């Protein structure tokens, strides 16, 4: 075998190996995108659920199940896992309204009908009754609003404090200039 043909064979082998590696990388990348798509679909479920159920149903139940399906249960069969995961997410989109209907009735009483999330300065997220009121922008607050958490530079704060109710529940009391409004749906 002449040296030039030997070099050609070696170059061919090198190209094959490189091609295989590139294909593997590309397939991993595409797999990651497709897995992400399942989570995007599941986020539609989250949007369809009331805010009070986001943590209990989406974050603590559906998302871990999907993660387990995709990355553990079918880790060796990515195509099956993708199929099952996508079906799981899509089916939940279909049943989200029903899930919300069935779950909302079991929320503890008193349960604020609507509210907003805030991030406390210690990092906890709590759900506070009522809409966000920017005009209570006192800097003595214990909480930073969720939006302000993203844009802290604007310095919008929610005024309030933590307290323990007679039934033992820890709630975040939002101070009002005339009265106090309470109602923490969930504290993490």
């Amino acid at each position: 075998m002449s040296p030039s043909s030997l070099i050609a064979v070696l170059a061919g082998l090198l190209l094959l190996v490189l091609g295989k590696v590139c294909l593997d990388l590309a397939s991993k990348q595409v797999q990651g995108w497709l897995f992400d798509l399942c989570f995007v679909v599941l986020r539609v479920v989250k949007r369809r659920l009331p805010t009070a159920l986001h943590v209990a149903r989406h974050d603590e139940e559906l998302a871990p199940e999907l993660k387990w399906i995709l990355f553990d249960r079918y880790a060796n069969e990515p195509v099956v896992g993708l199929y099952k995961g996508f079906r799981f997410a899509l089916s939940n989109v279909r049943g989200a309204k029903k899930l919300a209907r069935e779950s909302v009735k079991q929320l503890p009483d008193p349960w604020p009908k609507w509210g907003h999330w805030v991030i406390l300065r210690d990092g906890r997220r709590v759900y506070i009754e009522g809409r966000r009121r920017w005009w209570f922008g006192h800097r003595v607050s214990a909480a930073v609003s969720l939006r302000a958490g993203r844009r802290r530079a604007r310095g919008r704060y929610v005024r309030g404090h933590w307290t323990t109710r007679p039934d033992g529940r820890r709630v975040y009391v939002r101070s009002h200039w005339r009265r106090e409004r309470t109602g923490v749906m969930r504290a993490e």
Partner: protein
Amino acid sequence: MALVVRAFLDEPSKPKYGFELMESLGISSGTLYPMLAKLERLGWIEGHREDIDPSVAGRPPRRNYCLTGEGLVLARNELAELSDQLRPPQAVRIRPVISGGFS
């Protein structure tokens, strides 16, 4: 619904999670989770988050469901009633009656 209740009654003490029930019963997640929420609201089952360390267990903590004591009794009664309702009517035996005849 009866299938889900039946699955809980088969092993009342064993906690079950959503995907396990989906696979064993062949129900889609969009149907199963509202059912579980309804059963939880009725007090037949109770859900609780698994207390595990994800880094040790190698998976995120699940939400497990267990049959409650009250749920166990109610579920048995309801299933018994349902099976009574669904039982086919007893076949009426037609016996030929010989009356009269030739002598």
